[in-house]
């Protein structure tokens, strides 16, 4: 830039209070010697509306084109200062801030030392300011349409919520009909509503909504692009369609599996899974044999799943009601950390279901005369072994990722956790987010959730999508990350190491290209690039180099 640098330095003594620790006249006299500083102002509360307005108009009047502020932590009022600069017509990124409160006045009790450090920090900020370049913002328009992958309950909830928020939704389901695992359940106890009634109602509403399009027997073939404009190829039935979406919600659910190896036995007519029992209870046909005694085993296939506990409660009660069977539940830990579960547990007990708890030693299961024998040591009965035989034994299942997860994850470039569910570890900070902006995850495809939580997750994902897309455009800083196409050798390091998949190959320039709308500004790419082709604005080599000057001995 050819224009002359005119620096304006604004110091704030925080209501006069910092002057006890910092010698502001000394700072001023030191800064006055720097020729390109055109103005030095001392305010008492730079963060206040009055001082901000004054500063803003001064910047305009004096033609200041770089601003240095010595005040409190940028975490507090940086945005406010930038706002004032913008109002005065100056690009807000031409600001260099020295944190002389939290990093000097408040932590270095010797006045001379605090002052010395403040001077140094300000000198660095001044040097830094000279290198600053404006970052322009740009509104990127985004498509408000949303694709939801998975027509189970969380996907349907997300679709309904988004449609209410005025988004056009495409709901993709692999099977012929919507509903997912919900369709296999015979009851949603303790909820009064039956799964059928709930599903029928939801599907009815879904079908009525003009802005929801349901595609069944459909699968995702290809996904390109970024937040705001994902180009998606879908195969629905026998046709292939290409569409654009602003955001994607993955709600593909989970799978369950009988862990044969942990039980050491095979399923049979007498040893069945909860899902088989659900189906049997759901059908109105007569059972070949009325089970007099039913046992439910928990915590063997999966020690952690909450689904098995509630399903044993539900199915145990149902069997009791329908056949008057004796019902026993064997478990290691009752999973009661769901709203209202303790009460339900007590009710199940009051209705005559008998509980046994085993420890590290698993129950022994054997067959004899068409009966299934369960032997165990119970927590409360101690060494006295419990020995019971059943007509029907319901074993628990392990919650596992679906087979398609890896494939979908690689299509979408999203990460899996160590158990191969979606979402890597640190997303506890962002519950329904994936590593990519604009792709969200909901329901049991990302975590072991009970039914109400699965519903809630779908809504949370809808909320997150809406928040991102509702204005129809996203304001992004352009050139926040700068790639020097001449230096880039397309080693692909940045593309591989960007945690947000925000870097692509520019086919024309034959260089890496940062997609501003997807970039979150971490600078990992710049840290990696072996050709020094990437700089993060505000943290360029020059800017960091200037800050390191602090370490040189005072001249």
């Amino acid at each position, binding site marked *: 830039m050819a224009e002359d640098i005119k620096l304006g330095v604004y110091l704030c003594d*925080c*209501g*006069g*209070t*910092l002057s*006890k620790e910092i010698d502001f006249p000394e700072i001023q006299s030191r800064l006055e010697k720097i020729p390109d500083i055109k103005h030095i102002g001392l305010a008492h*509360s730079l963060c206040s509306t009055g001082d901000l307005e004054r500063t803003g108009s001064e910047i305009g009047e004096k033609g200041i084109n770089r601003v240095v502020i010595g005040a409190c932590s940028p*975490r*507090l*009022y940086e*945005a406010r200062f930038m706002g004032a600069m913008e109002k005065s017509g100056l690009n807000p990124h031409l600001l260099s801030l020295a944190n002389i409160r939290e990093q000097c006045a408040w932590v270095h009790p010797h006045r001379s030392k605090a002052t010395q450090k403040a001077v140094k920090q300000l000198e660095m900020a001044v040097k830094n300011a000279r290198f600053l370049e404006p970052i322009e913002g740009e509104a990127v328009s985004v498509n408000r349409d949303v694709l939801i992958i998975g027509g189970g309950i969380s996907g349907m909830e997300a679709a309904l*919520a988004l449609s209410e*928020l005025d988004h056009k939704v495409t709901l993709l389901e692999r099977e012929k009909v919507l509903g997912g695992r919900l369709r296999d359940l015979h009851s949603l106890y*303790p*909820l009064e509503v039956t799964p059928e009634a709930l599903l029928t109602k939801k599907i009815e509403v879904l079908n009525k909504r003009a802005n929801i399009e349901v595609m069944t027997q459909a699968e995702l073939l290809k996904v390109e692009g970024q937040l705001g404009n994902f180009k998606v190829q879908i195969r629905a039935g026998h046709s292939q369609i290409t569409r654009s979406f602003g955001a994607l919600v993955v709600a593909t659910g989970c799978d369950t599996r009988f862990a044969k190896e942990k039980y050491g036995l095979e399923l049979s007519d007498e040893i069945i899974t909860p899902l088989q029992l659900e189906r049997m209870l759901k059908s109105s046909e007569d059972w070949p044999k009325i089970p007099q005694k039913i046992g439910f085993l928990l915590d063997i296939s999966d*020690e*952690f799943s909450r689904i098995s506990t509630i399903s044993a409660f539900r199915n145990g009660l149902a069997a009791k009601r329908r056949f008057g069977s004796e019902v026993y539940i064997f478990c290691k*830990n*009752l*999973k*009661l*950390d*769901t*709203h*209202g*579960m*303790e*009460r339900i547990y*007590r009710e199940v007990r009051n209705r005559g279901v008998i509980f046994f*708890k085993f*420890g590290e030693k698993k129950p022994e299961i054997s067959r004899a005369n068409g009966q299934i024998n369960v032997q165990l*040591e119970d*927590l*409360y*009965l*101690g*060494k006295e072994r419990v020995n019971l035989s059943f007509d029907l034994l319901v074993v628990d299942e392990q919650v596992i990722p679906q087979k398609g997860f890896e494939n979908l994850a690689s299509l979408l470039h999203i990460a899996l*956790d*160590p*158990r191969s569910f979606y*979402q890597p*570890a640190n*997303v*506890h*900070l962002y*519950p*329904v987010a994936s590593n990519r902006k604009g792709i969200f995850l909901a329901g049991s495809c990302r*975590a*072991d959730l*009970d039914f*109400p939580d699965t*519903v*809630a*997750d779908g*809504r*949370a994902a809808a*909320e*997150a999508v*809406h*928040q991102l897309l509702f204005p129809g455009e996203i304001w992004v800083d352009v050139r926040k990350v700068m790639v020097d196409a001449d230096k880039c050798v397309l080693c692909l390091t940045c593309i591989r190491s960007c945690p947000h998949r925000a870097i692509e190959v520019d086919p024309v320039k034959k260089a890496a290209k940062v997609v501003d709308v997807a970039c979150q500004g971490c600078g990992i790419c710049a840290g990696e690039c072996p050709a020094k082709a990437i700089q993060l604005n505000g943290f360029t080599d020059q800017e960091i180099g200037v800050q390191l000057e602090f370490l040189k001995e005072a001249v």
Partner: protein
Amino acid sequence: MEEKRVLVIGGGVAGITSALELAHHGKRVFLVEKEPNIGGHAASFCCKAAEKCNKCSVCVLPEKIGEAGAHPQISLLTASEVREVNGEAGDFRVKIARQARFVDPDRCTACGLCGEACPLELPKAIHPPFAGAVPSAFVVDRDRCLRFQGKECRSCQDKCPAGAIDFDQTSQKMDLEVGAIVVATGFDVFDAREKALFGYGKYPNVMTGLDLEERFLHGGSIFLPSNGKPPQDVAFIQCVGSRDEHIGNGYCSKVCCKYAMRFSRLLQYQNPEAKITMFYMDLQMAGKGFADFYEQCKGSIRFVQGIPVEISPVSEDRLGVRFEDPWPGKISEENYDLVVLSVGISPRKEARNQAKILGINLGDFGFFDSLNPLENTCTNIEGIFLAGCCQGPKDIPETIAHSTQAALRVIRSLS
């Protein structure tokens, strides 16, 4: 377009999350908090990272607090309480009582001159709130301030360069008109004294989970109150104030198993020699990634399925814990130097009164009642929604999800 205003009651994780979500959607939000600062319980919680992050989620808070404090769409009404609510969805009229806090948060720059001017010995009667608090304005400790002991003193007021201190301030009333209300009043930590046989408050080496939070936050590590040494034999007792019908808390608090295991890892990270036993009823391990965490804990924590009946001191520094050891099936007594009571989540004592003011139903055990498990942010009153632990126990991620959902329901109700 007319601004849709929303009242959020409670400035903890839930209230802040709802407020921020609503503000992001362009709604004008009034966030009422009865304490002088927002943040709620979680602001006194510590990071539980050991060799790596243990996913307690406490660190999401400082950023959210800062964001809520700076957001132009959010007005913070601290030291304030809702006294009256009239009207209906879309048009609620709310009366708010604003306590005199004597320090104007808009003017105070947290410089600390007032503290120096205070004639009292340490601790001074005017002091900064907790680190990172929003607003950062100093707070007056009425229990110590001379003015509240009937004496004349204006030292701090005279010294304040910002003119932020005003002892003539009285409590004020404020009327607000809002379209919807989010109730996010949170929870009370169970008072461990109610379980008298555990001797909390009587034996110094019996602490609660909350004590651990605060000690780790302010001290970085734990030392035994009795002798100042790091604890070697630690017992965690689960379900203190949870799953206990006798005291009226017949529910699982959801958070205690997890925080106890996280604390155990942290204690052992700081002192690999420390032996830890966890007495529990049933381990609750819901939550993303917690199963893996439990697997890691298995090797280093001794788990005993059974809740002790009594704690009694055996020496100045040692505590005897009596429990039924399930596998031999006999009563045992073991000695520990620290016993941590994993206290749970109780409904707010004021919940009954608040429910009356708001006209909403009180449900099981004294938490606010939601419409049904699938609409657990909606109440019997249209336009009033629930967020967070005031509806029932939740951990931080769940609270965030719930509060987000509440915000969504508000947006729907306003459109």
